[in-house]
């Protein structure tokens, strides 16, 4: 893994999740979930797509879009465009899910009796507690509160404090 690979991984993750890179990869990062996610993401996408170049293609595509000084919205739309191919797009979408849920998703297509749905495997103890889903609801992971007694009677800090995007 090179520094630029990690930089692209974090940059892309920030664009797609809507969370600041400072939240995903803080300067002081004792939890360091990114170092768990990048190899996990790389292996899972490579395995599922059967394409050993796909992850690199995704990061290079992101890097070239970033170099064009586009907005996050424009970069995200370009990354998720159908023209990138189905494997490329679903990998980017699974990246979003991974950051939010701390789990790796499997999509179950619709059947005669059930609509399309998603099941997922928790990646690790740490991934559960760092899931962004808990931050986007301005709360804490269930079972891992860092708040004090009675906090639930008053409104939380603004959403922007949790996402890092003012």
């Amino acid at each position, binding site marked *: 893994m090179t520094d630029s690979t990690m930089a692209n991984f974090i940059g892309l993750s920030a664009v797609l999740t809507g969370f600041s890179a400072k939240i995903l990869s803080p300067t002081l990062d004792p939890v360091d979930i990114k170092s768990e996610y990048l190899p996990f993401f790389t292996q899972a996408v490579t395995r599922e797509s059967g394409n050993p170049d796909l992850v690199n293609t995704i990061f290079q595509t992101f890097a070239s879009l970033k170099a064009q000084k586009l907005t996050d919205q424009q970069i*995200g739309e370009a990354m998720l465009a159908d023209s990138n191919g189905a494997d490329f797009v679903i990998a980017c*979408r699974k990246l979003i899910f991974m950051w939010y849920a701390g789990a790796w998703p499997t999509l179950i297509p619709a059947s005669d009796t059930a609509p399309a749905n*998603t099941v997922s*495997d928790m990646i690790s103890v740490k991934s559960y507690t760092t899931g962004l889903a808990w931050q986007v609801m*301005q709360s804490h992971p269930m*079972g*891992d509160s860092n*708040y004090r007694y009675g906090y*639930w009677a008053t409104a*939380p800090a603004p959403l922007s404090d949790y996402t890092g995007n003012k």
Partner: protein
Amino acid sequence: MTANQEYDVVIVGSGIAGSIVAYQLGLQGKKVLILEAGQPVPVDRSGYMETFFKANAKTPESPYPPTVQNPSASTPDNPLGLPDPSQENVPRYTVLQIGPWRNPKQCYFTYSPQEPHLTGDSPRANFAFASSYERIGGGTTWHWLGTSLRLFPNDFELKTLYGQGVDWPGGKDFYQKLVPYYEKATNEIGVAGDKNAMDQLYAQFGVSPTGQYGSEYNYPMPGITESLVDQAYINSVTSITVDGNPVFVTPTPQGRNSLPGERRQCAGNTNCIPICPIQAKYDATVTLARALQTGNVDVWYRHVANNIRVDDSTAEITGIDYITYDTHGGIPTGSGTVSAKKYVLAAHAIETPKLLLMSNKNKNFPQGVANSSDQVGRNLMDHVMYLAWGLAKDPVFAYRGPLSTSGIESLRDGEFRKERSAYRIEIGNEGWQWAANDPFTTLADFVFGQNNSQLNGDSVNQQGQALRWDKNLPANSQLFGAQLVNTLNGIYTRQIRLGYLIEQLPDPENRVELSKTETDHLGLPRPKVTYRIQEDYVRNAFVSAKKVSTEIFNAIGATEYTKLPPAPVFYGTPAEVTATNFQYQGDNFTFYGAGHIVGTYRMGDTKEDSVLNARQQSWDHSNLFMVGSGVFPTVATGNPTLTIAALAFQAAEHILEDLKQVSA
């Protein structure tokens, strides 16, 4: 392990009931041995927490051994990797087994087959039992919610007052005798409660705060702060009445610390079920530790009681046999028998009747111990639950605080109890976590363009309202970035959930028997369960709950998202049949379990229709007592644990009285 010690009392089970009895006897210098089938109480709970964090399905049992799911064993017909109960030494029923209830390779219980030609609304339909329990040191209070309500005096006279079910032995007198023990239970658990709120509630039902509460009535800790979710209901629901009763919100007395003390102050982990990470919530390991500290109580873990011996001439219990093991799937490592003057069964309402029924080798008791009435295992009950969920009009910041801090208790009694079951309504703080497996379902919907939450498609609720979260977005939107953040935030912070705890009636056909075909890894028969909701009386409460939910959501300006369950399927492959779905009055319903397993060795006034007398003593064997919710004649209208605890304190006094007679 050898038993050199002479014991006064042997107790089977180290949950709240067994631990309270052990503690009370140990304080009086009695020598007590607890046989616990499961693993020891861990030194700290970090191992349980790690198992919970890593679990894919965060069910009530998910932190506890033996593991209830193993992703590496996943197969197409067993996607969660449920263990085979025949390969476990102490299997138990888990909520993950409700779906595959007809598959004994995945489900610990076996079930009666359906009768032929049932229709969707047939009262004779069998269902999966919907509640679970633990077999570990400390028992099922590891994952209780903490709700510590007393039952009402009228709960003890359902038959006399309303012509339904049965009375408790002695009726209201039973309640009156229980009052001092309710106080002991409240103190042992360390309940945080708001006395003024309870006074107001009790006044509605004509219960006097003087006398009928007890002279010392109060709570050892101030009430737990109500949540912002509660605030959304408090002022708005009072416009509603239900069958003549006013609707108002009451803060729930709870077994969790509102102040620092012997245990930590609640930090609002929103995880009381399955596990409080900081033990701010009381659990029975607290009382078990107190019992052990008396110096008079021993506990033997991984000792599975498998037979009760009876003297052929006196009918007294003479010993309890056990089997030992080291690992969950390992071979038995030994066996033995322990004897004492008195015996107490405290193995909860499935394993206790199973043990009694397994003990069928005694000459004069071929139907099992304590079972001359043929009542052992019968009258299995739960609070059958109706769930309703919705989105508040403004953020209420769900997923914060204890799982529930308030409820609607004002509908628990009234003349309507002649026509339909009563219920209390629990107000959930956990968004749609229980109702819809959120945050994960809504997340997947907006990342992958699905619509299982009903928020991202063309879903319409049962009142005809369109449910798409953002009318400006197309159906099955796939979002990213700021739009995803704002969408998820808007939804999660508004999620609300109501749970109705509906009083099920005692039905002798609802029962625990021994499976004739399935065993566990020790070779012991597994429970065979028959479970129906036969009475219109109970089903009428589902109709009421559904209607009242809609009225409440309308009153607070919320949009209802309660999903209409699919129609029941009673015949087909194990994968095709439904587990808890039924039809009634043309509507589809599903029920959930409250975790309140009740009634399988009930007390009563006569030995013909009950297992125990009002002292919780076997009619058949005078030195055998039983404690826990299995003794309840009815499930009543409050969560059972405080009453279980009170009854355990009372039973301990009866046992002490009898031990005095032995020594005299």
